[in-house]
């Protein structure tokens, strides 16, 4: 069972190696003549004013939080969805398996409506 995952591990390592190699080779083959202008942050030709570590819009943070909630929801839906046909084909749990998950989704939808009403999804 677990040996099925060995090629994947190997593939990830090859992927990482495939990422590192061009940078290393580029560093060796390509010229390397740094000067202070070349190494300064790009700002369309102006001298950079202020630090780049600046304040940013809190909405990005809100989106990240809402994303976590929805992603967890998806993680919970996956096992249910992948056996849903078996649930449907088993008369004993058919209705229960269906209603229970939609109660769960319903609770999430309540939160979603709240976030929408509060303007957490607005960008204007």
């Amino acid at each position, binding site marked *: 069972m677990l040996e099925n995952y060995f090629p994947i591990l190997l593939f*990830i390592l090859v992927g990482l190696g495939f990422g590192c190699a061009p940078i290393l080779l580029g560093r060796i083959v390509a010229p390397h003549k740094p000067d202070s202008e070349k190494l300064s942050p790009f700002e369309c030709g102006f001298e950079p004013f202020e630090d780049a570590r*600046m304040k940013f819009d809190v909405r990005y943070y809100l989106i990240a939080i809402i994303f976590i909630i929805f992603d967890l929801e998806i993680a919970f839906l996956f096992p249910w969805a992948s056996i849903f*046909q078996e649930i449907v084909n088993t008369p004993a749990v058919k209705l229960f398996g269906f209603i229970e998950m939609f109660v769960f989704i319903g609770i999430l939808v309540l939160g979603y409506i709240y976030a929408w009403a509060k303007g957490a999804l607005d960008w204007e």
Partner: protein
Amino acid sequence: MDELLAPVKALLGPAFPLVWTMVKIVGILAPLMLCVAYLTFWERKVIGWMQVRIGPNRVGPWGLLQPIADGIKLFLKEIVFPTKADKPLFVIAPIMALAPALAVWAVVPFSDGWVLANIDAGVLFVLAIGSVGVYGVIIAGWASNSKYPFLGAMRAAAQMVSYEVSMGLALITVLMVSNSLNLTAIVNGQAEGRFADMGLSVFSWNWLPLLPMFVVYLISGVAETNRAPFDVVEGESEIVAGHMVEYSGMAFALFFLAEYANMILVAAMTSLFFLGGWLSPVGFIPDGFHWFALKMSAILFFFLWIRATFPRYRYDQVMRLGWKVFVPLTLVWILVVGVWMMSPLTIWN
């Protein structure tokens, strides 16, 4: 095949599985990289024709060597490490962007049985590793310590996670009707049904009963890979190139490769989940890898086509489409599919 491999097996002994897996990995990666290179060429050609230009035509016959010339050029360019940048993170970022875009191919079945790792949690693996790509973008923006990359990375991260939600929810419906997380099983499940029995397998694929989800998945895929018309992340005319501004030479090339590898990946996933992968659309033509390649090419052409056709969305429009249109639509469609499967009218059993 086994007989041919027997002497090699005897020669390598216990190291054989390792070597054989490496050969397969190279067998996937090398054509993939070639496809990436020629996808960039094809993109320039197609957009050229759509704008009544001829596109690249100087390097080699019909410009066919253009991607190779581009590669060599990028290879010989200096990699600039800005003074203010956080060096280790600055180097890690492009690798973090490319590695997951390649690693996902470990579970992609190219034809029945043609898969490196036929794992039962294939869909989970695709989603999990696919999500790691966003780290490359946000690390690049942070490590550059420059304003445009920072703004671009914030936008990119928010956009990518938003569309991941609608992609994930769209996939729930696919899982409900496929009864499996295994990619090969999902494709084979699409070969059954009333239309498939009549020899018209094309109408049994998931795209027809799950049509709204197919559209959501495809558009989310375009947004997820930050392609036009959702390329506010790069937005040449507003934030010059987003998180890639400070990158040059091969470090920049890695982001470029990652973007196109991700495009091909989204095309592959769409054809596996909704367009029946390697299945033939009609009964009398055999299934095979060529169908998979054809479907992927069609979706990739669609990507290039919409890039040449639509103007860029505004950022608030991008976010509104993801959160206020796709998320409710997918949630409703999960309910619809659930009720459909519970009712006597079900077409999946």
